[in-house]
Structure formats: C-alpha cells, structure tokens
C-alpha cells in the first residue's frame, strides 16, 4: 500500500493508518491469513474507494515545490499550479 501511495493520490495517510492498525508482524507470517478488526475492514473499504477513484489520474512525476508554488501564487502566476491538476 505504501507503493500504491506513491502513485495514487490521497493514499499515503491511509497507508500509514493501515500500518498502525495492522501492527507489526514477523516477515515469516506475511502470507498467512489474519483476522482483521472492523476498523481495519472499514479502512480497507476506504482504500479501495480511493484506488478506484484516483488510480487512473496518477500523480505528477514532478510536482511543484511548495515554496516555489507559493511564490508563483503571490505573483498571480497560476499557470504552474493549474498544469499540476
């Protein structure tokens, strides 16, 4: 999911939450089925919605640097920002 969050918008914080809720696990148990909590199931459904909603849009390879984008904003140069969308 962390890999997904690099290419699907709005996934990164959810991936962090997944790690928090799932907790640590030994590598040897990675492929074993585990029971999940209702909270984890709800999060998984939310992540599935985000993937379905935003996966095709992808993410920019070169997103604007925040401070530079802000300088452009202050000068009213909004082309940089609109091209990001």
């Amino acid at each position, binding site marked *: 999911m962390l890999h997904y969050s690099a290419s699907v*918008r*709005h996934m*990164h*914080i*959810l*991936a*962090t*939450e997944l*790690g*928090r809720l799932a907790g640590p696990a030994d590598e040897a148990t990675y492929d074993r089925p585990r029971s999940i909590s209702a909270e984890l199931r709800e999060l998984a459904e*939310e992540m599935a919605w*985000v993937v379905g*909603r*935003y996966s095709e849009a992808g993410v920019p390879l070169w*997103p*604007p*640097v*925040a*401070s*530079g*984008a*802000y*300088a452009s*904003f202050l000068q*009213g140069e*909004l082309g940089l*920002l609109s091209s*990001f*969308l």
Partner: protein
Amino acid sequence: MTWDASLHGWAAPLRWWVEGPGGRSLRERLLIGTRPGGEDVSERPYRECLAAPLALEAAAQVLDLRGRIGLLHNDAEAAIAALCKGSTQSGPMQRSALRASRLCARLDMDLLLWHVPGMQLVEEGVDGAPRGGRHFGEDANLGSVVGPAESDGLWSRIGAAVAEVGLEVTVDAFATESNRRARRYWSR
C-alpha cells in the same frame, strides 16, 4: 493559507485569486476557530496538526475547494511531517492527518505543505490571531518565536567544508525568502 494554533484555538488567513471583469484580484479572509472538545492538544505539534484540518474545513465553507490545490504553511515541522506522511508514533497527529486527507479526497483537492519560520507567521500577522482571537496584526509573543535557519556559525562551517572540495553552495534547502543563504532556495 497560513495557519497557527494556540491552546485557545487556531487562526488561518485564507487567500485566493478571483477572476473578474476588471482582471484578477487577490481576496483574503481571516478564519478563526476554537478546538472541538475531546481532542488531545496537550502538545504543541498536536495543536498545530489539528488546526490544519479545522482550518481546511472552515475554508471549504468559504470557497468551493473542489479540484483546487491548497498551499498551506506553518511553523511546526512535526505537524507538517505528520500531515504529509501520517504518524505511526502519535495517535493525535495521525487522527488529524487522516481528517485532512479524507477531506481532500472528498474534495479532489491536493495540498502542498511546507514549513516556515515562526517569524514569518508574525510578519504575516497570523501568529497573534489564535491567541488574542480578535486581531490580525502584531504579536505579543514576538520574543519567544524562533524558527529553524542556518546560523552564521553553521553557515561558515558549511562554506569552509564545501570550499575544501572546490565547490560552492548554490541552493539553500532550508530557507524562505527572508532567511535564504543562496540565490536559489526552498524549504521542505
């Protein structure tokens, strides 16, 4: 939007451009709010992190934020990091990051967040707003506000180190316009 928080609440001047018959004009509105009950605001990063989604939610009542990019800056680096990546160590900050992230997902909105020295919040007049709750100007806590920047001593050592290998610093990656050490700069 620049935001700042205190024990009493939060404040965030919201600025946006509007296209009109006479051309483009910059609009501004100061958003101020209190904190919802039950939230852990015992630590400053918690307060700053929580204030971000609260300010965004308030901004969404003022503007149609769908499909927009939000440029947000604040002087609490830990809060910025949590809002960008989430936090596995801090429940309060992870909750705030989730709240902001979920709002952005609903609005199809992207955030660009970065850290600025506290002095910049003072200069922009936002630092005093969450404390006084009334004014949008000079801050009473000016003397206690500090922000990260390369000190003169550190900068000298950096200059000496790169000179030894025949290089020079051309980009300052820990700077804003007010404290940059090189012509080109940015802040993470």
